[in-house]
């Protein structure tokens, strides 16, 4: 049986330049990082690039990590920064590779449905910084205070971004209903600023 790796000691060893320890950390975290990046940038190629860039930066910056117990929060921040970089690069592009999402609609308590496809289109229209806050809250389960600490943002900024994201999604879903033709166009080319 493989011995269970102690991640804390891997972090300390990686900080000292141990590439094996870094490899263990990268393997242990890459799936989660990629899932986060995919959810934020909504594009598989950019998600791969952001994940890879964040891990490379992690290796370079590890010696400067002050508190090993903050490794996950620190890595998360590197990933978000890499997603921002990808978002900036993507603004000049007109084509993106859309994520396949053919799952059925999500029922809610009132038996009405919000179609995944519509949700995806609406989510893409949100500014990247609002998507980041939303994803960290829902996928990572972070509180607004924890998101603020992770991103080094004032709490009020995080709260307002979360609030605007929700309001923006609702507006986009409703607008999607009103303009089916525009929605179909958006589906083809990909929407959103990020």
């Amino acid at each position, binding site marked *: 049986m493989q011995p269970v790796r102690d991640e804390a000691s891997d972090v300390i060893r990686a900080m*000292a330049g141990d590439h*094996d320890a870094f490899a263990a950390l990268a393997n242990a975290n890459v799936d989660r990082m990629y*899932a986060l990046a*995919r959810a934020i940038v909504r594009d598989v190629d950019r998600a791969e690039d952001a994940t890879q860039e964040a891990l490379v930066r992690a290796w*370079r910056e590890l010696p400067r990590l002050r508190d090993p117990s903050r490794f996950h929060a620190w890595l998360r921040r590197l990933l978000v920064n890499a997603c921002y970089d990808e978002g900036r690069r993507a603004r000049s592009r007109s084509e993106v590779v859309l994520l396949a999402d053919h799952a059925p609609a999500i029922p809610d308590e009132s038996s*009405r449905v919000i179609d995944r496809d519509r949700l995806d289109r609406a989510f893409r229209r949100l500014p990247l910084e609002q998507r980041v806050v939303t994803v960290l809250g829902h*996928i990572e389960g972070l509180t607004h205070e924890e998101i603020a600490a992770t991103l080094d943002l004032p709490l009020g900024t995080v709260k307002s971004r979360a*609030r605007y994201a*929700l309001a923006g999604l609702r507006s986009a879903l409703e607008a999607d209903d009103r303009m089916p033709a525009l929605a179909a166009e958006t589906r083809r080319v990909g929407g959103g600023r990020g």
Partner: protein
Amino acid sequence: MDRFSDDQVDRALGAWLREQSATRAPARIVEDVFARTSRTRQARRWWALRPLGRGLDGLPGSDVRRPSTWQRASAFAGAIGILVVVVGLAFVLRPGVTGPGTLVRPSPSPSLSASPSATASASPFVRPSPTPVPTVLGSTAARRLGLGDNAGPIEVTEAFGSIWVADIHGNDVRRYDPATMREVARIPARGAAWFAVADGALWVTNQMSVGLTRIDPATNTVVARVGDVPPCGAPVVAFDSIWQSACDAGVFLRIDPATNTVAETIPAAGHLFLALAGGQLVTTGPEGLATLDPDTGAFTPIVSAAPTDPAIVTSDGNAVWVVNASAVVGINPADGRTVGRLDAAEPQAISFAGDRAWVTLRHGGVLEVDRATMKVTRTIPVPGYPLVPLESAGVLWVTDFESSALWRIEP
């Protein structure tokens, strides 16, 4: 057409996003990472003078070989050379020795290190201040005061002959002498963020907690805490009251400063922030701009081109200024007309002084803007994350949230 509540959208969004968290990463990501990082691996190991170990089995870049004697000698010589350069730079850049364009990092004073007992104390206390470090930002003289690793300065304001800084992470309000930057008091205030002056007292929002804290400037003590919901944004003093958004609760509070009580709670769904402009209470948020009638609590929409995703709102007395992620827009609340606009990357806040305005940019310094034309006349390269600017008595004060610092700039 479907009409969804925020709660329905939030639950559906959460379920949809959590489904995606099971995604597996393509193997090529880690392969490429290992290939890229293995190039720096040997150099780092030599630097640490650590014995080389086993590589990454079966992965590209895992073929670590023991360096030759020549390689070891080169690495050792390089390390000595870098050490000499670092020591030399440290000598040249030591505090008190500055040159044009040189930023000198402050040397933290041991006496300033935050102690738990200090922030938990219920009484004001004065501690030896760290020394502000003189420097030059571009061609502008400035002084930087480090506030300590645990600080998170939000607003800076001038009141009662002092400069006050709200420290959201350190849970305190700090009072400084404006001439010397000497700290003269530190008052506990949970999650301190935004200030107001009313009824002869300084008020600060408890953004990481609930309500507002009232501070007596004569004694530097907390004399009251008012409100039981978390505040959002800056308080506004108008119509003999303090008006405070509490967006988590979806209400505005009207606080009577004479009695230290919440006099009224106004439902305010869709309205996030408040400002006093043109003699009116103006609100912003997803519902757009609106005026709030102080007597009836009724909102009247203002048709305007103001962003509906404001991060902050302020006033120059006549116009309301809305800041979002890409622009600062001034609106006349009387007719909704746009009176000024500045497009910029990640503006944080705007303040006004005479015929100029100051705009902070995240990682972009502080802009001096001509109010008449809204053209940038100068960029002061304040490093870090300049957050709130304040010009008072010819001095520009700026909080740096990321680096936990207060800047005193002489524009």
